């Protein structure tokens, strides 16, 4: 059953025939798509199309009822979230999920992988090594904070940040490791124009300079049109089409999904 992988651009993330039911509601209905390496792929669709559910299935929060998810050549279907993370996939949440009782810097330091101090006995028997690693992690966290321009709130409680700053913190968290692919769930929701522009620039820089692949859900069409290529459209749990932003924008099926379709027939 080995089909030779096509040469050239290879899909980094591949979703095949995914199905997810919640009771009688089919949130995802045989959805398939691919995300190519080193792209910023948009995932759009009307409310209730199953985009966030798709993220939750890919990252292991939900177990799919059918279908498979591949990261590179590896089948990651239904792996728990921390295992998905270890294989190089990060995600952010639609509503920021910071750790409010910790400072911004420790919110970031938390994410660093392979911390020996997370095995509690090492804190008793190998304190010097834990301390040295903490130094490295802190330095990295400070770099990341500088990149997203949050240095001025380093020691602030994460819970006290503004909505926009929390969005930046979400993005920053994914940079504490070296992810292959980052899933962003509405990175610009509730964010002002200036900040949105900055987030877009950050994403583009990361793709260009670090070769990180992005898959992002976004409702702001300006952002999608400027940033994403290609764009995947989901509607009622299915993959409706894939194309360049301008193709998608003018496709009658997409317009119908947004404006007519399910609503018109009701």
């Amino acid at each position, binding site marked *: 059953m080995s089909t030779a992988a096509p040469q050239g651009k290879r899909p980094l993330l591949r979703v095949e025939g995914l199905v997810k039911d919640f009771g009688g509601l089919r949130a995802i209905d045989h959805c398939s798509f691919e995300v190519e390496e080193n792209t910023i792929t948009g995932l759009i669709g009307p409310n209730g199309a199953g985009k966030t559910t798709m993220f939750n299935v890919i*990252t292991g*929060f939900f177990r799919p009822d059918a279908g498979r998810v591949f990261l590179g050549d590896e089948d990651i279907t239904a792996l*728990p*979230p*921390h295992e998905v*993370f*270890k294989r190089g996939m*990060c*995600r952010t*949440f639609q509503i920021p*999920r*910071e*750790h*409010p*009782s*910790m*400072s911004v*810097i*420790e*919110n970031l*330091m*938390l*994410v660093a*992988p392979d*911390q*020996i*101090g*997370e*095995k*509690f006995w090492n*804190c*008793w028997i190998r*304190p010097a090594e*834990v*301390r040295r690693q*903490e*130094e490295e*992690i*802190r330095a990295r966290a400070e770099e990341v904070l500088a990149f997203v321009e949050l240095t001025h709130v*380093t*020691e602030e*409680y994460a819970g006290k940040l503004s909505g926009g700053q929390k969005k930046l913190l979400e993005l920053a*968290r994914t940079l504490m*490791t070296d992810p292959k692919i980052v899933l962003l769930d509405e990175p610009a929701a509730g964010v002002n124009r200036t900040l949105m522009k900055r987030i877009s620039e950050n994403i583009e820089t990361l793709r260009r300079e670090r070769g990180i692949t992005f898959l992002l859900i976004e409702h702001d069409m300006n952002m999608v049109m400027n940033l994403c290529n290609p764009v995947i459209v989901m509607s009622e749990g299915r993959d409706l089409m894939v194309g360049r932003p301008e193709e998608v924008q003018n496709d009658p099926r997409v317009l119908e999904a947004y404006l007519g379709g399910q609503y018109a027939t009701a």
Partner: protein
Amino acid sequence: MDSAQLARGSFFILPLFLLGLMVIPGSRLVKVVLSIIAAFVITWLLATSLNAGVFTYVASFSTMAMIYAILSLGLNSQWGMSGHVNFGIAAFFSIGAFTSALVTTTMPEGVLASYSAQAFGLGMPYLVGILVAGIVSAILGWLVAIPVLRLRADFLAIATLGIAEIIRLIFQNERWLANGPQPLRGIPQPWLCLVKQPNCSWEPQWLVDWLSPLGARDYSFVNFLIVAVLLAVIYLLLERISNSPWGRMQRAIRDEEQSAAMSGKAVTYFRIQSFVIGSFIMGVGGAIYASYMVAIDYSHFLPLYATFIIWVMLMLGGSGNNKGAILGAFVIWFVWTGTETMIDWLAPALRLISDDLPSRGAYLRWMLVAVMLGAIVLFRPQGILKERKRVSDFMPRAKAGK
């Protein structure tokens, strides 16, 4: 100068020194010097100003408060650090107490055997008893954790409450195990030989001379010292891991589990870890309690007395703060024992309200504790000492001039 009072006082020096190290701020040198001075001065003041009876009361009061402090520290590593609502402290407390009792006592012989039953009696030393108690309690915690930690907050609370009742009823009904409803007696007291003839074999002559004015009644002081040292060790070990990357991860999971999972943390595994560590400490607390009481039975482990008062202690002292856990234990134990005398004083006033009331005064204490818990939650939810902002002590400080 009364040599007996000074001998009693000498048991206070080390605990007070350790307390000084904990509370006095400043550089290490300042801490050590001030703590030594403070320890000697306070000891001298206590020994000269108190009579023997009050002094003994202070020692045994503090010992019990410290046992509660250990339980409160155990709860802190479950609730404070990781957000487990464990309403079954009594389960781990009693398992620890009965385990160490069985491990350290010897099987009853002769006449005693006809009215006292226990599953086994190994006659092992005190420290072995503590360790085994901790391990057995940790194993129980682990077994409980596997099914139960999938539950959240209120469901976890109900499940643990139920488990504690099951364990207590087992100890109440299974006579072969630990003498059923009758107390299990004769739990050995460590270093009793310091104040009782014959003297300990390892005891140097100068110590024998120094302690010679003391008798078996003064054992409270010996126990006080031992419990203080054990509390200090537990506190230090816990403080180390709670202010570390491990503690940071626990707090992250408590705050926001999904994003901790998406940051690569194996949430369930780490939640079980903190639950088991807390169970271990509670078991150790139980072991120390058993030897403090000498005789224990199921009635010591009722939910009000062995679970909820510890919750009040931690909530008042400060959830998430190990110092707060200890402070809360002392404050609440003081209020709890203090109100007993207060109710006696209030008897005439209570009689004015109703003739029955003075005899039911004891229940007013429960109301008082409940009111306190309510007041804490409403007016100072973070407790007296709130949780620190900075988690990891291993992390370097921000560079100066920023």
